[in-house]
């Protein structure tokens, strides 16, 4: 595949001489302290652990689009430049206020808005359309306010506990549930926020996006359906994780249960989710195509 470069000056500029590289470097400097703050304050908690994954997936998707982005005509239109200037100003203010006042969501939003501005400056509206998905995904790197997380996590925890209890009853296990606490034998296990999986839901959606990119083109309705189905799939994966934890604790004891929790539980969650996602995708692929 031949890369078509836009008309360039006589000398082929090295990477560090490219204007885009300077803007990206500036963006990196702006985002660096916020990334450190996120890493030490937000991403260490299980309930907000989806940040780095989504960031990585988003950057990877953008890097993948680089050849096509670079091939677009260079000059952004006047409205695009104005929009870019507005976004850069708003983003800069958000970053400065957010960083100086330690308001993390604002500090995270700043570099994001500036990134959109930079894309607009570089390749205008077509460029923005190309990178729309990874840029929107970046929104999920912004830490959610505690009240929102609490409001959504509580019913989720309850639902996961209820379904897990039902499944265990099907298997004939003597499980009693009180709120989000599952009691089996002499063990009492509390379905914690991390097990409710709000964060893992975001992570799984990001992995789903990755999967869609890697799998190749498919009708839009299939991709959209899969993206939506990922939410209940994530729920199912979380239920499986809780059920397995209870079984491990019941059969192998408390220490084994804790070991599982800190080690294999997360891997199990993603393995189950990936398998379910692949199965769902293959099932959707069997759907008879409407004649066009």
């Amino acid at each position, binding site marked *: 595949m031949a890369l078509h470069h836009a008309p360039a000056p006589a000398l082929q500029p090295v990477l560090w001489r490219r204007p885009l590289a300077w803007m990206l470097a500036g963006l990196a400097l702006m985002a660096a302290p916020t990334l450190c703050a996120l890493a030490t304050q937000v991403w260490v908690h299980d309930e907000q652990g989806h940040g780095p994954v989504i960031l990585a997936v988003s950057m990877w998707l953008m890097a993948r689009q680089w050849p096509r982005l670079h091939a677009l005509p260079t000059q952004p239109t006047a409205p695009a430049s104005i929009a870019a200037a507005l976004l850069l100003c708003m983003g800069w203010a958000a970053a400065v206020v*957010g960083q100086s006042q330690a308001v993390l969501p604002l500090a995270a939003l700043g570099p994001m808005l500036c990134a959109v501005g930079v894309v607009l400056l570089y390749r205008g509206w077509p460029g923005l359309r190309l990178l729309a998905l990874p840029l929107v995904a970046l929104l999920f790197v912004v830490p959610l306010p505690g009240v929102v997380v*609490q409001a959504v996590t509580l019913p989720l925890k309850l639902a996961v506990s209820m379904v897990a209890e039902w499944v265990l009853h099907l298997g004939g296990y003597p499980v009693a549930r009180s*709120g989000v606490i599952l009691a089996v034998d002499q063990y009492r296990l509390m379905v914690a926020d991390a097990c409710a999986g709000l964060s893992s839901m975001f992570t799984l959606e990001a992995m789903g996006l990755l999967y869609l990119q890697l799998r190749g083109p498919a009708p839009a309705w299939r991709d959209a359906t899969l993206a939506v189905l990922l939410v209940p799939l994530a729920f199912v994966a979380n239920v499986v994780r809780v059920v397995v934890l209870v079984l491990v604790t019941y059969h192998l004891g408390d220490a084994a249960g804790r070991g599982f929790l800190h080690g294999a539980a997360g891997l199990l969650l993603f393995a189950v989710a990936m398998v379910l996602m692949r199965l769902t995708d293959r099932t959707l692929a069997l759907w008879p195509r409407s004649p066009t």
Partner: protein
Amino acid sequence: MTADVLRAPGARRALLVAGALAAAWPVAEALRPRRRTAELHGAINLAAQVPAAFGSWQTDITLRPLLPDPALQAVVDATYSQVLARSFQRSDGARVMLSLAYGNDQASDATAVHRPEFCYRGQGFEVQDLGEHFMALGPQALQVRRLASHRGPRHEPISYWITLDDTATLPGLGRKWQQLRLGLAGWIADGMLVRISTLGPAVPAAFALHASFAADLHTALPAALRPRYFGGGRAP
């Protein structure tokens, strides 16, 4: 920087943008608040400043206010400078639980962790929001949030408020905005969360007891300390 590189399309603009982006960090550092209101208004010492006995109230060691579970306590210890949990009994037998959490630095969003809604729910309580009401403290009207909590047979009505420097607020956008204004003016505001609760049904009489306890404590504190615990100081 060679001239031909600068002649590349959009190069000068890119340089300007890059410079502005890179400047965000140093500017944010310069704007970071450094002065502490705690140093301006004097140190808070919860254990020493909250009297053990005042008016018709005595400390009651048989009743212990609800404390956060150990995992949450670790977070609280990290974010709060001082915590005090004390129960009082009035001469007529009425008992009240008082819980205070003071933070020297409220600039980071630490209060969310200690709010009764989360603290109690995290320990299996069901918490119902009964809205915002006013407590009369002499000439001052203190705005508090009322909650009705219960876990099994234990019913516990709660009234609470938060101070920011020497004003009283409730959690929400208004408080965040106040904090932001103080911060942009260069101040790190201190503040505390004051929680009053009793055991029993969440009836008006219970909340009236909270109010009467608050009023008595307000009177018992020296005038200089009252705004730090109850607000009512000049608006920031």
